[in-house]
């Protein structure tokens, strides 16, 4: 088992697809990840399972790798009896988590948005472009830029988890590019596919950040750094020409529109 602990998860899943189901059972969603370079041992460690859960997970993975062989699970060092302190986000992390709320509301609307895609009328194309602008300006320029240009710089750029986050951002940008070109061509099918792909990508991306990345970062940051991040985010908010209110209004209107249609 030791050799698998030091292997990238994507390689393990590619070789033994059953491992993905085992991870899913513990809400560890490595399957849809585009990069998958995290080592199995790091994935297990970062999810902070209880000792029993971790043991069960390892047994499940061992069985998925080889149901017949008696695979040895390395003994884990006994954890301290002291319980971890109750966790809450620091104010700059809380800000990023709060920004996710609007993005989550948008991705929740995407299936209905896709059903109603109208590439033929000027009004329909305008609405699609507004949706893409929500992704490009609010989710990317306003939110991801804070991460890439400020937050991530406090950490080792070669950390696997940061590479995964960067790869997600790059994928989102390439979907935006494709969608803009598809609007020009009035290519409804591509826009629909790309919006759904964006939805899936961002849902998983936000979950990883809220539940794994930000808590992990909060544990690493010093008090000094938390204060610096807070000031820098505040500075970005004051200087950037992106109005969160405009995008909140856009989402409010869409929600009302689809509620009416359902009603």
């Amino acid at each position, binding site marked *: 088992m030791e050799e698998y602990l030091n292997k990238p998860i994507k390689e393990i899943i590619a070789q033994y697809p059953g491992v993905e189901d085992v991870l899913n059972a513990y809400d560890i969603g490595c399957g849809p990840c585009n990069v998958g370079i995290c080592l199995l041992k790091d994935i297990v460690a970062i999810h902070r399972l209880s000792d029993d859960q971790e043991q069960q997970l390892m047994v499940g993975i061992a069985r998925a790798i080889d149901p017949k062989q008696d695979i040895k699970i390395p003994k884990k060092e006994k954890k301290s009896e002291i319980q971890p302190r*109750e966790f809450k986000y620091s*104010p700059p992390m*809380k800000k990023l988590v709060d920004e996710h709320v609007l993005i989550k509301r948008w991705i929740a609307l995407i299936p209905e948005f896709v059903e109603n895609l109208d590439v033929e009328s000027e009004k329909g194309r305008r609405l699609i472009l507004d949706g893409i602008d929500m992704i490009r300006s609010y989710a990317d320029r306003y939110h991801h830029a804070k991460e890439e240009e400020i937050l991530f710089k406090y950490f080792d750029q070669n950390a696997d988890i940061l590479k995964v986050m960067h790869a997600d951002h790059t994928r989102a940008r390439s979907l935006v590019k494709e969608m803009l070109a598809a609007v020009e061509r009035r290519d409804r099918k591509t826009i629909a596919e790309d919006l759904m792909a964006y939805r899936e990508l961002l849902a998983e991306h936000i979950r990883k950040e809220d539940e794994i990345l930000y808590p992990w970062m909060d544990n690493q940051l010093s*008090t000094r750094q938390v*204060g*610096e991040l*807070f000031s820098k985010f505040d500075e970005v908010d004051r200087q950037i020409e992106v109005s969160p209110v405009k995008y909140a209004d856009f989402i409010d209107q869409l929600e009302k529109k689809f509620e009416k249609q359902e009603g």
Partner: protein
Amino acid sequence: MEKFQGCPGSRMMNFNSTAEDNTPPAMGKITSRLTQWPIQMHLINPAAPYYQGADVLLTADCVAYALGDFHREYLKDRSIAIACPKLDQGQEVYLEKIKAWIDQAKINTLTVLIMQVPCCMGLLNLAQQAAEASKRKVPIKYVVVGVQGEILREEWIAA
């Protein structure tokens, strides 16, 4: 019926019989991490240079006696002021001084260290009131220290 024990803030307790000293003896003299004077909230000037852009500790008087590693773990690289929310008079002055830290000295963070006794929450409330009344926002953390020096709670509160 349980005998009335009085205020938990002033109830008599003796830790001698329960406290275990498993820590190795310190190697040499422990260096003080205090880098300023004065420190009492009535005496400090919030515009002093050591508060400018600083990570500031607002510490209840008893904390430094209870918390064995106070200098190394908390005071290092920080500026400080101390106060007692139960016994100090004229705490409206404190409110104004905390506001001045936030708005004028533009402190980086404020960490409020209090004891587990209920009266100590007054110091955190005071800091929160001052933060709400300030124009600038800063991250505020609070740390609750047990009477035997254990950290009972340490968390950020909304800026």
